[in-house]
């Protein structure tokens, strides 16, 4: 039976991961994800989880060790943030190319510099094109649920890809929330033990991570792209099963108050919760505004997006990262390009907000919706702005 708990979300994430019985955990300290591996090391030290916890000397090694462990047939887990994720960069596309179903939780934090330990999503956006399944949680309950779902998705024979689960640093990692924690029997029934296709063992000799010349490289990239796109089906199946077993609904894009919405906000991560409050308030005042919470980042939910924005006139994408010298925030450029060829598409605008821990408040969304209302009449000149820059 699930138990009602009140707990810091990072600790709850560790408890949820422990319920998945990972066998090798390799992690290196970096704020703000650190409470997750710390608490996992407690769980291992107390004998509640039979796993090897490797206190690695860097994040590069954390992910490398996970590759070795996963290749050997162990369920492998790591967690990191910001510079730690950046330090893993070399290994990230290799883990997906080698089809190693590692699960990584990212406590999202701004990339340096200037050095800043607080939240935005520039760290994971930097890894966007690496071939991992990438998902965002909005609150503590979703962190628990999606941690468990991640292993099932990653290890499915039709997927066999690493998954990164994103939760905003501090806004989620360090916040205490009431949540429901499934029990071990429930998780065991949902998540069978890892059955890899091939492992490193002398009884069946394989070579992993071989050299690919130009004559097979296109094909290898095509295969990687295909499997990531096709993982959508498994993700939806896993979420369907989750709903049946635990009663909570997960969709690639969660729609709030979208009925009759002329203006819609698109958010990722914890700010969706705040935006929802703003949208509720504005709806009471008669403003036709709705909210789309983008949960699944890779594979990108094109179909769901196109369906969700039907009837919307102005779509405001809220980004927590900048693509310097580019078209706007990364989510914005994805969303706009996804809709570009649609015959009946909304005007898409972009607000880059909440960088490096800058607070995002209900009134900020209200102001953004006011701008969108103006855009209904007159289109703004600039594609994007960094919201709330002092002196501008």
């Amino acid at each position, binding site marked *: 039976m699930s138990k009602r708990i009140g707990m810091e979300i990072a600790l709850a994430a560790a408890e949820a991961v422990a319920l998945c019985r990972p*066998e*090798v955990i*390799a992690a290196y300290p970096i704020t703000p994800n650190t409470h997750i591996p710390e608490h996992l090391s407690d769980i291992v030290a107390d004998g509640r989880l*039979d*796993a*090897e916890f*490797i*206190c*690695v*000397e*860097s994040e*590069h*090694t954390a992910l*490398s*060790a*996970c*590759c*070795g*462990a*996963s*290749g*050997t*047939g*162990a369920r*492998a887990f790591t967690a990191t943030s910001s510079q730690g994720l950046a330090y893993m960069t*070399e*290994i990230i596309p*290799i883990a997906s190319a*080698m089809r190693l179903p590692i699960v990584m939780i990212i406590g999202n934090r701004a990339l340096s510099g200037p050095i800043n330990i607080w939240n935005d999503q520039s760290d994971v956006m930097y890894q966007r094109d690496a071939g991992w399944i990438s998902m965002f949680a909005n609150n503590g309950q979703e962190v628990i649920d999606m941690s468990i779902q991640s292993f099932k998705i990653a290890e499915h024979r039709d997927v066999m890809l690493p998954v990164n689960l994103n939760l905003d640093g501090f806004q989620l990692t360090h916040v205490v929330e009431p949540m429901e924690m499934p029990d071990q029997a429930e998780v065991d029934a949902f998540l069978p*033990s890892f059955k890899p296709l091939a492992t*490193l*063992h*002398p*009884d069946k*000799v*394989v*070579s*992993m*991570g*071989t*050299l*690919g*010349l130009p004559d*097979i490289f296109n094909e290898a990239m095509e295969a990687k792209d295909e499997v990531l796109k096709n993982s959508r089906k498994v993700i939806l199946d896993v979420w369907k099963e989750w709903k049946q077993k635990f009663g909570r609904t997960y969709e690639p894009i969660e729609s709030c108050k979208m009925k009759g919405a002329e203006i819609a906000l698109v958010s990722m991560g914890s700010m969706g919760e705040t935006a929802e409050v703003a949208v509720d308030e504005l709806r009471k005042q008669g403003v036709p505004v709705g909210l789309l919470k983008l949960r699944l980042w890779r594979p990108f939910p094109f179909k769901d997006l196109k369906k969700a924005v039907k009837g919307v006139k102005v779509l405001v994408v809220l980004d927590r990262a900048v693509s310097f010298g580019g078209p706007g925030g990364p989510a914005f450029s994805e969303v706009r390009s996804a809709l570009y060829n649609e015959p009946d598409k909304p005007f898409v605008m972009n607000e880059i907000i909440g960088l490096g821990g800058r607070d995002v408040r209900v009134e900020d969304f209200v102001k953004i919706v006011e701008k969108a209302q103006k855009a209904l009449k007159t289109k703004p000149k600039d594609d994007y702005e960094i919201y709330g820059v002092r002196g501008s």
Partner: protein
Amino acid sequence: MNIVENFDLYAPKLTDRKEYFSPGHRACQGCGEALGIRLMCKALGKDTIIVNATGCMEVVSSMYPTTAWELPWIHVAFPNSASVGAGVEAALKVLRRKGKIADRDVKTVCIGGDGGTFDIGLQALSGTMERGHDLLYVCFDNEAYMNTGIQRSGATPFGASTTTNPAGSASIGKNQWKKNVAEIMVAHNVPYIATACPSYPVDFMNKVKKAREFKGPSFIHCMSVCPTGWRIPSAECIKMGRLAVESGVFPLYEVENGRYRFTYRPEPLRPVEQYIKKQGRFRHLTPETIESVQKRVNLEYKKLVDRVDGLHSWDELELAD
């Protein structure tokens, strides 16, 4: 009786007939590293997992869809064979404990070149050794980044000309002494450390076998002659390894629980000149420079002799108890 003439008679007694590193790989003629790997695999036997850093051996042995490896083998990247090996070892331990794999010893063996060990992989190696994973790391040191075209590494010897610090009118080539990676491993308190060279195949294989039996980390620094990068004829590979050892440039020794021991001590040592003069990479060196190299080799050798004669080892801790 000449052992070579009776090779078929004696070889099977010296080692396993089974090849785990198959012919058909794409290593250069006379590659000391490929030979070293072949010997290492024979000494290790079937119950081994190889973790390969990026480098010559990964490139020549794993061109998809072919593989030269008849042992389980994984390659992930350049700087991390020790890190991947740590994950493999941890996984074997937990899977065995949980009864998910056969209950028998399978040894994790990481291999890397000098670039992957002395330079870009040093941090990963240090972490893995410090944590005490039960694995063997073998560094096949050919004294430069040969795979990318003979660039200078921390293992390149003093005076060698490479493509990134070439000899010229204003340069003697590399102007620094080679890093002593075995001593770095000694400083990590690794229980078994050895130097070796495929020119001494039995010595090398014995060290591999010994390292395999150690519980915990072990390290072998294997000098691997590279005819392409050293600018020598392919047929000189074995001879050049012997000259490195017999001149004292690359002494063969082991450090077992802190106690140093020569495994082969040629006396007297050959002049370093005999080793240097045969190699194109040193061809620009003047007699004066060669003399200064001789002095430094003498000094390093004496330092090693001091350690071999040294009276302090970990055994004292046992006695103190």
